[in-house]
């Protein structure tokens, strides 16, 4: 910085302005209803998300109780943005879920949004886990999204179906176009988010992806984490206009063991977070999303991720 008289005045003014901004920024949430830290635009934290289902939704694959709610998970991890994805017990799982007292989110959904209003951004599913969707839920979620200021988008989880399935996705292209028309109408604008697994990258789904604003790239098989770089490159080709979020699981899947999900080894957690951060700084991705269910298991990879967020969260991009 040049040490001219004007420069000193200017930097003094900036210094005072920044102090005022800091105190104003802090004073706001400190004195605001709620006690959450402010999220500074342009920081890593501003781009961090957690993905959450209703409490205990993963019981079938982790076989352990969790008691942590989505909002609790977001605050615990230090992530100001949340993806809320509904989940209904799958066929044959009803009894197991009944026994543990599991409940999907039930209408009116707005009630669940009370604490979420304190977060910066919320995205809510119209297609839930397993690609499940129904007319009435889509309608209610869309109405809520238009009303609640910090709901910035609509989510479609497990949207693309197995190759063996007669329908390629949970909604037709026409249905998707209709949703998009609603989201981009004259009123509040909302984004359309979708889950895309790395093993779906070779599928002919370009037309669907072209209708999505944000693609959340998820790696289901831990071995596939070694190919993150190649997979991102593929996605950039497949959907050049969409923004991308890197989805990071905290669990390692093995279909042959019970439970199917166990703690992801710390090095794998570290790799995906650090790769994600590099891409975020390069502007190749728009956000990093930590899988936010069962964070009260206190797995080492979760402790690592939380500490990592603490360290990098407030650094500038």
């Amino acid at each position, binding site marked *: 910085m040049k040490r001219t008289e004007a420069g000193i005045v200017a930097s003094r003014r900036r210094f005072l302005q920044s102090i005022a901004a800091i105190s104003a920024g802090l004073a706001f949430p*400190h004195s*605001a209803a*709620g006690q959450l830290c402010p999220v500074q635009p342009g920081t890593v934290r501003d781009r961090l998300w957690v993905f959450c289902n209703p409490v205990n939704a993963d019981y079938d694959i982790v076989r352990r109780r969790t008691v942590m709610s989505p909002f*609790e998970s977001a*605050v615990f991890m230090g992530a100001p943005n949340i993806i809320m994805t509904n989940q209904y017990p799958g066929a044959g799982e009803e009894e197991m879920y009944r026994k543990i007292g599991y409940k999907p989110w039930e209408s009116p959904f707005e009630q669940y949004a009370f*604490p979420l209003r304190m977060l910066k951004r919320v995205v809510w599913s119209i297609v839930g886990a397993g690609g499940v969707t129904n007319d009435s839920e889509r309608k209610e979620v869309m109405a809520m999204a238009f009303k609640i200021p910090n709901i910035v988008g609509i989510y479609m989880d497990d949207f693309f179906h197995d190759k063996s399935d007669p329908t390629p996705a949970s909604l037709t292209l026409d249905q998707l176009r209709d949703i998009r028309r609603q989201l981009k109408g004259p009123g509040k604008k909302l984004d359309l988010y979708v889950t895309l697994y790395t093993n779906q990258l070779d599928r002919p789904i370009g037309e669907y992806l072209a209708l999505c604003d944000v693609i959340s790239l998820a790696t289901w098989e831990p071995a596939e984490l070694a190919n993150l770089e190649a997979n991102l490159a593929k996605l950039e080709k497949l959907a050049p206009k969409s923004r991308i979020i890197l989805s990071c699981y905290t669990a390692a899947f093995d279909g042959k063991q019970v439970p199917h999900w166990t703690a992801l080894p710390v090095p794998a957690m570290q790799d995906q977070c650090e790769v994600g951060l590099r891409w975020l700084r390069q502007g190749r991705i728009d956000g990093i999303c930590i899988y936010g269910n069962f964070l*009260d298991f*206190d797995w080492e990879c979760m402790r690592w991720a939380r500490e990592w967020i603490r360290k990098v969260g407030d650094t500038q991009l």
Partner: protein
Amino acid sequence: MSNNRAGLAMHRRQFFQTAAAASCGFSLCAFGQLIPPKPGTVRDKLWLFSNPRNADFELLRKRSVMSPFEAAVYMGIPNIMMVQQYPEKGQESWYQPWEPPFEQYTVPLSMLKRVAWSLTGGGGTTKDWERKQVLSMAHKTPNIVGLYLDDFFHDPKDKEVASLTLDQLRDVRRQIKGPDKKMDLYVTFYTQFLNRPLGEYLKLIDVITLWGDPVKDSSNLALLEKLAPNSRKMLGLYTTDYDKKRVPAWIGMPVPAMQRQCEVALECLREGRIEGVIIYGGTTLDLGFASVDWTREWIRKVADTKL
């Protein structure tokens, strides 16, 4: 405000100190995103009374989906009372009590400043195994500062005076005042008990939380001060209005009554007559009551002022 040079220099220094502290606080609080309350402020003395999610369905006849932690953060309250409650027969589908291991519930609560956990829960219910587990957890969990006895004193027509005998209470006290971590014993005390001979019990209590009809003035507190001069006190404020002949028995407290009791409590806090204000509660905050909105806004305004 003084307008001399020294005064100006002082204000300037204070301004920079505040800004510096604020910026330090920013990174410190970022772990878990919660800003810790500043000692000596009103916020530091605010508590939330919380039961398991939806535990008051019988009284409210409206679903609540908020967790205790969500409720505390929503209100801007850094301290929480976690009070167990079991459904009565036939009401099991309404809500789930907290089930062991209780430690799992403390993961988000670790971000709050202080937690008090119940040994006797709603309706005065207490179980040997639960007391044992809660006491063990409390010794291990750094921010659990006390044990709570809810609905502890029974109706005069009941043959037991309280949920625990004096000997049991002395034993609990021995465990929480031992050589290791020291904790406080809290109790719910309704205004209708003020004329009962409960002095022996109250002597064993560190903090008496006074609850009753909407607080209109501090006259009941004055009676309690006479009855238990050595205990610390807190005032409990409901956000609901109770009428047992009505269904639902609880509806939102009218805002003027809510305002009155908050202002009386704040005055008592500033006078040093009480050491905390407790807002009820986790089960009533996502139901759209105007009293809750008003209280939330009131907390926003007064919480960071100095006592």
